[in-house]
């Protein structure tokens, strides 16, 4: 029994026990369902072993929606706890665990995979490629992310969740103050997912630099591809820092090293430093692809080309470099001298300039455009004013002297939700609707989608604007309750109502998907939005090989030129197409990673060693494997293309 007692939850509550039962029942239902409908083979050969960037993108999307649900439930529980003074809904330990997991889940397991979903699906299509540069590596990226996320998520039913905040600052996160295994889950779950993300960065940098269609110079790339390129570069330079910091933290916790201890030569604030050296570029990893998505949606629905293409590119490149110059603004109150804070204050405020340029470019794109208020466009239009408010409060926070007032209060919480929700979440929801017909072959219902948008926007304003006020009045973040005499009660109640509206909006989004699966017509054209870039030039749904003939690019909006200006996109005849083979190794290797990580969390060393050997065996297998891929014959291409009506049918 001694061995198994480590898996118990240190602070159990009825909510956790009921989630355990719910998880158990769901897993059982899935297994029974798959067996009953004889879908195991379909799941294995179609999805678990796939290296197709489109299917990997869809798997990222599904995972992101699941994690949005999980993180959203956390958020609603937190707002419910704070809705009235002296609330007894959650105890302090449970509240700590919830805000820690909410942050990690939303940033790393919801926003990141959502961005990865769209990058995976859209970028190869936008540059006229047949897949990413390293399709097998792409599958490994996805499965490592997925296993990392699952490892993190089982923490709340096996062994206890991390409770030191999503930033997991030492010494609080050290063994002395966080004795149970929660923080081990944090260190190892994020590590596994982070390795996957780093691989994605390398993969997409190579894809975009090497695999563009003939004629597509760097300055003719669509803006989302540009943002994916810049994001990949930030990933490659930022994630190694996280990897190293997490290894040091893991060693502190498991092997009693002294990197982040307060005694014996350790330096606890070094964790905060390394965390934010990664953490600040990380927020740009999230927001730049979101900017790219808005730059695709706004021109399409304004029927105008993107205003200021060059300045858009320049400001993104500038932001990408500058994102590495500002990290100290996350701990102005840590104890550096005023002149150090001033340096980082200025670098931080400078970032507002390129961001402002982009905002004006979007406005000028819409100026005199013929705007269609579809769901993706509504999200883009909602984004501009709301994100600007977040940006302005960001500049307020950047003033280091004033930051002593804002630091660690609800004002900060309001600020970063104010940039991440209208920035990233609006972008991925809007782009999710925009690219839905390309992914699944039918449109999402516009009417329900608009309801969801308005619920989300109004809910967002109600939930977060009151926090600016309570924050300035001194309500600290991460405090599980407050007394009535503080006067925070009414505003927090408004926040709770806003959170409820946002939860309703999530239900509406899921309902849109359900409703559209049931009722949406399946005969949408290849280009339902009258769009401008290359991803709409292929069929709907996209065939395995993306483009039967590699397109010829002549301008920034080749597809628009092909539709309206007589540009010939597909020249020449069909040739046989070389495609990569599916492989089960990425999935198996990631499962072993999961076991390895689980063993490390609970310090079960023999299992960890077996897992490590298994990982190396998988890598060795890859080294000795001979796999030349397969060819799709010309007859097969002809057959598929005839079914879709030929390569140039939209002319």
């Amino acid at each position: 029994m001694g061995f198994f007692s480590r898996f118990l939850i240190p602070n159990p509550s009825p909510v956790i026990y009921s989630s355990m039962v719910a998880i158990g029942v769901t897993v059982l239902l899935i297994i029974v369902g798959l067996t009953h409908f004889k879908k195991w083979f379909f799941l294995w050969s179609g999805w678990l072993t796939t290296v197709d960037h489109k299917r990997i993108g869809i798997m990222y999307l599904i995972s992101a929606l699941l994690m949005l649900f999980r993180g959203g439930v956390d958020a609603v529980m937190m707002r419910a706890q704070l809705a009235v003074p002296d609330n007894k809904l959650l105890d302090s330990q449970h509240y700590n665990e919830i805000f820690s997991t909410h942050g990690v889940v939303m940033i790393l397991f919801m926003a990141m995979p959502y961005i990865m979903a769209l990058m995976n699906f859209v970028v190869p299509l936008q540059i006229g490629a047949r897949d990413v540069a390293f399709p097998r590596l792409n599958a490994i990226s996805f499965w490592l992310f997925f296993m990392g996320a699952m490892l993190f998520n089982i923490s709340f039913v096996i062994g206890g969740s991390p409770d030191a905040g999503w930033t997991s600052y030492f010494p609080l996160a050290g063994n002395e103050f966080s004795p149970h295994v929660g923080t081990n889950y944090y260190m190892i779950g994020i590590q596994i997912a982070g390795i996957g993300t780093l691989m994605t960065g390398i993969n997409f940098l190579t894809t975009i630099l090497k695999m563009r269609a003939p004629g597509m110079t760097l300055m003719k790339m669509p803006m989302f591809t540009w943002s994916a390129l810049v994001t990949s570069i930030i990933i490659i330079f930022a994630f190694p820092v996280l990897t190293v910091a997490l290894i040091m933290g893991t060693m502190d916790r498991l092997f009693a090293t002294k990197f982040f201890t307060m005694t014996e030569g350790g330096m606890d604030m070094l964790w905060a430093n390394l965390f934010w050296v990664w953490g600040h570029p990380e927020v740009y990893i999230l927001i730049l692809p979101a900017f790219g998505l808005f730059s695709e949606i706004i021109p399409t629905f304004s029927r105008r080309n993107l205003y200021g293409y060059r300045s858009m590119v320049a400001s993104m490149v500038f932001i990408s470099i500058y994102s590495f110059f500002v990290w100290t603004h996350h701990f102005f109150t840590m104890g550096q001298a005023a002149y150090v804070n001033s340096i980082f204050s200025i670098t931080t405020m400078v970032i507002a300039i390129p961001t402002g340029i982009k905002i004006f470019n979007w406005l000028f794109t819409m100026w005199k455009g013929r705007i269609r208020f579809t769901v993706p466009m509504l999200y883009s239009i909602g984004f501009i004013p709301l994100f600007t408010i977040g940006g302005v409060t960001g500049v307020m926070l950047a003033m280091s002297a004033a930051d002593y007032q804002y630091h660690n209060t609800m004002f900060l919480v309001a600020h970063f939700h104010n940039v991440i929700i209208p920035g990233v979440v609006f972008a991925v929801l809007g782009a999710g609707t925009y690219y839905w017909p390309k992914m699944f072959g039918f449109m999402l219902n516009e009417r329900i989608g608009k309801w969801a948008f308005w619920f989300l926007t109004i809910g967002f304003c109600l939930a977060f604007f009151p926090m600016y006020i309570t924050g300035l009045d001194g309500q600290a973040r991460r405090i599980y309750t407050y007394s009535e005499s503080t006067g925070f009660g009414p505003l927090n109640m408004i926040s709770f109502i806003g959170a409820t509206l946002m939860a309703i909006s999530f239900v509406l989004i899921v309902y849109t998907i359900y409703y559209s699966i049931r009722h949406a017509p399946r005969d949408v054209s290849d280009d339902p939005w009258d769009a401008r870039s290359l991803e709409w030039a292929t069929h709907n749904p996209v065939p395995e090989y993306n483009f039967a003939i590699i397109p010829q690019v002549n301008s920034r909006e080749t597809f628009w030129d092909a539709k309206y200006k007589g540009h010939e996109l597909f020249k020449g005849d069909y040739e046989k197409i070389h495609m990569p083979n599916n492989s089960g190794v990425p999935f198996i290797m990631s499962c072993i990673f999961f076991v390895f990580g689980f063993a490390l969390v609970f310090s079960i060393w023999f299992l960890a060693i077996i897992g490590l050997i298994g990982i190396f065996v998988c890598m060795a297998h890859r080294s000795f494997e001979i796999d030349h891929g397969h060819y799709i014959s010309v007859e097969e291409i002809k057959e598929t293309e005839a079914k879709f009506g030929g390569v140039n049918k939209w002319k």
Partner: protein
Amino acid sequence: MKELFPAKQVWGFVFSLILTFVALLVYFFNMSKATGMTIFILTAFIQAAVQLVVFMHARETDDSKSIFMTLYCAIFLALITVFGTILCMVWGWSY
């Protein structure tokens, strides 16, 4: 015969061995900390450059332009990170 002999790699190997021995001198001779660190840093950076150019073929393909762009970018950001960290945690530390 001359085409078959990888002269560049052999000389690179000899050179990297020499750099290793130079760094080893710090251990065998009694020198000040500053001199020792200078030798370490210099030999380490030259060593890294030799490895990249000679053994990792950074200059031999059509991609060398993007390889060096990435490399310079990496060095620049690494320097910013290292000196920024020292600025926060050592030079500007006021507690």
